[in-house]
Every structure is written in C-alpha cells, then in structure tokens.
C-alpha cells in the first residue's frame, strides 16, 4: 500500500538546517498494523505528516496504492486524503462547536454523502464505538476516553483504507488506553491498515511490526510474533 524511498525533509531557520528525515525508506502492506517509535525529535511526526499527505517531502518518492504522490499539489493530496485516510490524534482534535454526532458526520459532508446515508453511517459507527448515548453532547462534556472514541469514530466513518494514529493513548489513563488499542486492533482485523506513532512499548505490542527511528533514519525493525 505504501512505499517510500529515500525520503528527505529539512527544516530551515535563518541559520540552521535541521534534517528531519534522512533518506528514509520503508514499506507498509495493506492490512498491516505498524508502530513507529523513537525518541523526541527523531522524525516520527514528520513522517506521519508526510504519510498522511499533510506535508510534502523535499526529496524522495512516496508511492501510495501504486501512485507516485510526492509531487502532488495540495488540492490533489487533499482529495486523495479524504477518501483514503483517517486520522487519530493524541489530543483528539474534535471541533468544540459541533456535537459528537456532527463531528463524526463532518467527513461525510465533505465527501458529499447524502443526508440520510450520513445519519445511517454515523449511527452505525457511534454504535460500534459505544458512544451512541452521547451523540448530542459537545466534546468538552465528555471524558478523554470518550473523546478519543469519537475521534476514532470520525476517523473511520468514511471507511478509510489507512488510519494514521499519533500517540492515540497519550492523553488517556491505562484502562481507557487499552480500550482504544482494542478498538484499533478490531479495525485492523477487519482489514484497515494502521500506522501508529507511539512512545509506549505496551501499545506497540498491539502492532505487527515496530519501526524504530533515530535522527530521521530507520535504526531497527521488530517483527512481532
């Protein structure tokens, strides 16, 4: 599904150039659950942003589902993104002005799904995430665990092929964290590819494979049994 080759990304300030990704290459197959680990500043987030088409690389190739997208402009990337990728963040990033239902509905609105179909699909996914009873609440009225469920519901409502999760349990206690990891595992078992950035060895164990980064390069790959 994903093949990146010699990917490079630099950050420049007036005097210093920092290398975030240094000729990084990796492959992720459809249906895989990959965890990316590494210390702060190793390039995890940069990598996730590029994988998620939120940012573009300076050098190298990024092939997504057989299409080279490294040179795509923002509009094309956005189009590809909204049909294929769902995001889960550490800080949930729900929109405060919208209810649970409306937050989850938003991606469907942007992809032009009809109103009746939207209701059906949002209810389905809220049901699955077990937060149907909170559908009319606003994010600030929910616990962290509930907010992350809503965020995951929003990420999957469009039935994306790939979910990118950036420390999805980072703001949660261990019990809620485990619930979230179970949800992601379930999604993976139903066929969704998942790439997750994490600091937690515990969470990483839910994955099939751990890629460890240091200074923008792969230093080790662990295949989980």
């Amino acid at each position: 599904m994903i093949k990146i080759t010699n990917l490079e990304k630099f950050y420049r300030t007036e005097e210093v150039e920092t290398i975030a990704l240094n000729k990084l290459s990796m492959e992720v197959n459809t249906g895989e659950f990959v965890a990316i680990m590494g210390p702060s500043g190793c390039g995890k987030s940069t990598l996730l942003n590029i994988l998620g088409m939120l940012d573009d690389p300076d050098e190298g190739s990024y092939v997504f589902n057989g299409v080279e997208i490294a040179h795509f402009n923002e509009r094309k990337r956005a189009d590809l993104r909204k049909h294929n990728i769902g995001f889960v963040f550490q800080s949930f990033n729900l929109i405060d002005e919208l209810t649970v239902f409306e937050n989850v509905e938003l991606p469907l609105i942007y992809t032009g799904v009809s109103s009746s179909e939207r209701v059906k699909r949002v209810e389905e996914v809220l049901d699955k995430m077990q937060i149907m009873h909170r559908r009319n609440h606003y994010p600030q009225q929910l616990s962290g665990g509930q907010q992350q469920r809503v965020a995951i519901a929003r990420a999957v409502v469009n039935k994306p092929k790939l979910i990118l999760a950036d420390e999805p349990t980072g703001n949660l206690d261990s019990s809620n964290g485990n619930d979230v990891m179970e949800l992601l595992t379930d999604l993976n078992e139903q066929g969704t590819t998942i790439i997750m950035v994490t600091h937690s060895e515990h969470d990483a164990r839910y994955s099939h494979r751990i890629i460890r980064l240091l200074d923008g390069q792969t230093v080790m790959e662990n295949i989980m049994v």
Partner: protein
Amino acid sequence: MVKNYFKVAIRSLMRNKVYTSINIIGLAVGIATCVLIGLFVKNEVSFDDNVLNSKQIYRLNEYVHYDGTAPSLSAAVGPPIAPFLQASHNEISNYSRVFPAVPFIYPSITLEYNGKKIKTDQIACTDTSFADFFNVKFISGNKANFIKTQNSITLTKSLAHKLFGNESALNKTIVLHKSDTSATYFVVGSIIADMPQNSHMQIEGLLPIPDEFLKGYLGDNYGILLGPTYVKIADNKNIAALEQKLTKSIHIKNTGIDIRLQPLSQIHAQSVDINYDYYNYNKIDGKYINIFIIIALAVFLIGCVNFINLTIAIAGYRGKEIAIKKIIGAKRTQIVLQVLTETLVSVLMALFIAVGLIAAFLPALNKLVNRELTMNTLYQHNNLLLFAAILVFTTLLAGAYPAILISSAKINKALKSKVLFGSSKSSLRNVLVTGQLVIAVVFMISLIVITQQLKYLQQKDLGFAYTQIIKIPLDTKAAEKLTVVRSDLAKINGVVDVTNGYMELGGNGGLYGIDYKAPNGEAKHISVNMENAAPNYIDFFKMKLIAGETFNKNPSNQYLINETLAKQIGYANPVGKQINLSGGFDPGVIVGVVKDFNYSNLHSKIEPLIISSVDMPVWQTQLYIKVLPANISGTLKVIEQTMKRVTDDDQFSYEFMDEHFKQVYQSDQQVSTMIAIIGGLALFISSLGLLSLAAFVALRRKKEIGVRKVLGASVINITATLSKEFVNIVLIAFIIASAIGWYTMNMWLENFSYRIAIQWWMFVFAGILSLTIVLITISFQTIRAALANPVNSLKNE
C-alpha cells in the same frame, strides 16, 4: 452542506459573543449611516423628477450684465420675455411664468372667507400652463377650471383647509384684500394637492397674472427681475446653441441680459450662485451632495475594514478547527464558503440592526436637514433588491479576504499553534487600521476648520451693528402709516430707536438702475444694489461715513453711496456729484460715502450700493427697532400691541437680526453638525477596530510579555511597549490625514469670500486628540495583558 455552513457559522459566532457583537455593531452603524445619508442624497437628486417630461423643462435664467456692474445670474426675469421668445422661436413649445404676487403685482394679499382672514405671501401669479409644467394633482375641480378667468383662484389643500376648515372650498367666493382700501372677489376654481416636498416650487395658492398688470410699466418691462419663467423645449439636443439664439433675439429688446437655460433637474442643487431664486426655498449646494456621498462611502468602508480586521483577529484562534476540517477532507473552497457564510450571517444581523438604527435616527436627520424623508422608500421593490445587493456586496467585501487568508493556513502550523497568523500577516491589518484612522482624523480636522470658520462668520464685524435689533416686515398698508408707526413705537419704554429700510439685510438686495456722469463727462447708466432708508438709518446701524455726511431733514434727492460704488464711479471725491435713480426720479446729488458694510452675507463680496431716502411706501418694507436688553419680552408685547393698533392688522411677526444672521449660515451649520456626528461615528467604529487589533497584538506577544515580566518589567513598561506599535500607526495616519484635510478644507473655504486661514494648531489639536483616543481605547487591552500572570502565559506556550 448549506445547512451545515449556517449551523457552524451561527455557533462559532455565538462562541465569540463579545467580538461578534463588536463586529456586527460596527458594521450596523456603518450601514445605517450610509443608508441614512443615501436616503438624504436620493431625496436631493430626486427633486422635480415627478414632473412629466421633466427633461424638456428648463428654467429661463438671465445672465445680467449691465455696464459697470458685477454681472450676476438671476432666476427672475421680466414678464414679456417668454412670450416674446416663444413667438420667434419654434423650439419653445410652451412657457409658464410664476411671479410672486406680493409685492410687485399686489401690495399684499389677505384672503377672507366668512370673516376668517389669512395673510400669505406664498401666492404666485402664473399662466394656465403651470398645471402641466408642474404636473399639478387636482383634488377638486380640474385642469379646465385652473385659474381660467381673471377672478379665479386655486388653493393648495393645506391653504384651503386653513381658510375653509372641513367645508368644501370649490366654487366658493372669497375676498382678496390687496391693501386695506381695495379688495376683489375671487372664486375658488380648483383645489390642488400641496406641492410634493421634493419639488423646488413651493407655493400655497395660484392666481392668474392680471391683464392690466401685463399692460403696465412693470408688466411690459424686459429689465425687471420679477419671477421665474419655465419653458418647454422638446428638441433639447443643443441647448447651448439655443441659448445663443435666444440671447441674440432678446438683445433686440435689452442688451444687458443674456438668456441661460437651466434644466429643471438642476434647479434644486445647482442654484447656489443664482440670485432672485424665488420659491426654491430648500435649495442645496450640489457640492455638499457629493461630499455627503464620499462621507457615506467612507463610513461604510470603515465599517467593512473593521469587520475584516476583527474576523482575521478572531480567526487567529481558529487554527485547530480549520486544520481539522482540512485533515478530514474539507476542500479549500469549502473553508472559504464556511467563512463567507459566517460573514453573511453577521452582515444579515448587522442589516437588521441597521434598519432599527435608521428608524430611530431618521426623525433627527429630518430635523437636521429640514426634510421629510421616510423609510417607506426602503421597503419598495427596488430597494429590497438594493438591500440584497448590499448584503452580497458587503459579505464579499468584508468576507473575501479573511476567507482566503484563513483557508490558506497550512495544516501543520495551524494544528500546532494557537495563533493562526504570524506577524507578517499583521502588516495588512496595520494598513487597514491606518486607513480607518486617516478617515477619522480627516473628519476631525474638517470639523475643527468648519467650526472655526462658522465662528468667524458669526463674529465678523459686518460693518454695522445688529444686536438688540428687531426686524419687522412692513406691507404697503402699514408703510402708508409709517410716520405714526415710528413715532408711536419710539414712545415705548425699552425702545431705543426706530428706523426703516427696503432691502433685506443678510439677504438679496434689489437691483436698480442709476444714472451719473463719469469723470470723463460720459453719461453712464448702470444697475446697482439699492437700499431706501430712513434719514437716521446710518446712525441707527452705527455705520461709518468716510466722506461727506448723512441725509439731512429733506433727503428725497440726496444719495449715499458705498466705498465700492465710489471707486466704480471714479471721482477722487464723489461728494456733491450728480446722480439719480432711473425711472422718472429728479436729479439728485451724492451727499456722503459709507464705509463698505456686508449687507448680503459673507459668502459673497461687497458689491456697489446706493442708498436713497425716498418716502415711498413700496420701498419701505423693513422696520427696525432697537430695544434695551432688559425686559425684552415686555417690550415686545407692547410693540406688538402698538403695531396691531396702528396698522389695524391682527397679524404680527418679527425677527431678531442676530437670529436672522445665524439662519443665513444655516446650511453651513447643518453641514458642520452632520460632519460632527458622522465624524464621531467614524471614530467610534475605528476605535472598535483598534480594540480588536490591540487584543490581537496582546495575544501575539503574550509570551514576550511573560518573559519581560519575569525579567522585571513593570506594568507601565509593558503598556508602553505595546502602545508603541499604535503610536506609529497614529503618526502615519496623522500625516496622511493632514494632507487630505488641508486640501479638502481649502476647497471648502473657497466658498466664502471672507474666510479664516487654516492654521497649524488645528492639525496638532486633531493629532493629539486622536492619539489620546487611540491610547485610551487600546489601554483596555494593553493594561490587561500587562497585568496578566506571566506563569500562565509561559505555561501555555
């Protein structure tokens, strides 16, 4: 999708209640001001457009240029001119003459019915074509009966109501008193609607022009300036050529006048320089209309700029929301539409508030500009469309830039930082705020200059004393008893002195021909302004003589002239030289030269003037009474009783001369009041904009403020640091505004022959005032930012 836009828009507006309110109020005030001025302007430019074929109707003006006089444009012309020109020119298909019935045709007019008497000078003698020319609406009677016979009168509805009450007036016979000795019966042939408020022609009643008057000396006089004449010209493609043709023809009769044709639509707003402009009471200087349009647009622009600033400032907090929307698939156009929808909702709310504001302030505006503007026109079909256009236009103007800016935010940055835009984007905002301030400071400078000029006009020595003087208009009936009137009034306790005159001080003089011999022996005939005064006139008004002496006991062939006329006649010492009024007066002599005094107003220069002292009732139309300041109301009461008793007239009206002079500058005063109000509003809206900008700056520099405080900066240090940015903005705005203000105010001052010089302190004053207002406004934000606990601001970063 659309529903979602509105839903999110309303919620996100609700979330920032304070900013949203500021935003909407600023815009509403801008729109309301703009619409109010728009209503006024629309009314002014719509004058006389309700007349059928209005484009074919012209007022026949005269460019009067008798030898030796300053040429001037007159709206009043002689009675035979129109018939003469029509007979020889096919282009003129019809004409209508509208002559004031009083004082030239009838000495005075009092209408009487069933013992009820109404005195009016708002009656005109006209031709039957008047009904067509001014599209008269008949309430009872019809066009066929419109002043059909010599004894037929037409009344407006309100005059008919005054005289007849609820009784039907049609075909009733009334008595028309021309003086206390002569009266005629007239039949009310028709009742017409009052002239529309947007017609320049304001009359109360109409009479035919008497046949015997037309045959008399005045009626057959090409040179007299009697009243306006309107002509219909169907083929109006080349008016300039026609003017030349008509002028050539009229020179057969009188070489001192040229014909000018003024389109009906221009009479209201382009007649400021025209003299003897009867009936055109509410005329306005067209220049002011343009100024008002510019002002309205400026205030509207300020409101929009404000809106843009605030929207961008608020958007600074919306990084997360925008980023998330983009991540989960919003296209850029969808973000743009989202922001535009929010703007649309705000503008819609602003429009509703604006309509409320308009309704609330329309009466005040009407009072200020002396009009009867209504809101009805706002709800007409066209204007609803106009509102829709304002809605769309304002939405695009105020929303487009924020929408493009917000939607262009990079996801990464937006997600990470609380503030969406860095300092680079604030430069445009600075430009916008500077622009707002420029407009506000220009208003301020204008206001200072206008106020000073008006103060100067009111305090300027006119060359004669007019305080504590009451002016009473005299009709011929009263003038015939002038000796008794004067001696009885002089006996009243509290009355210092009494005199009388002919011209209206502070208004138009009357032109009259004079004959004299120039120093080279050539006989001269010229027209000059003429005053006919009582012998004590010069002493009464404390005017100064620079040569000779004033009238003596038997002044009927003695003349005083003013300095300007003395210069024009050309003798080193004109005293003792021969001069006389044209038209059968005995030869007279110049007895003295009066120092120039401003008998008209300070808009115009002093022109040549001759003062005669002939004892003729028609030239004794103004009575002046000097009173003691103590117990004026008591004195007035006795004066009223005396006047009523002596003249046997139950009507009494008077005016204090200083009040009269105030009125002369009324339209200038109106402009100054309007600029004061609008300038205040502009400043208010600009302040709202500054408030938001200050909030934004405080947010942007939150960390910096925190660090500075940790390092030991005091609240005052921080406030000063934050204020510095704004001081620069004010300085730049002040420099630009000074240039604009200097230019526009010089242009305005050119309207006055007597004017102040613009002085440096006016600019400094405006500058200091605006700086103070700005600093006070932003201090709400800067002090708050400076007082904040640095621990919090640093932790948040």
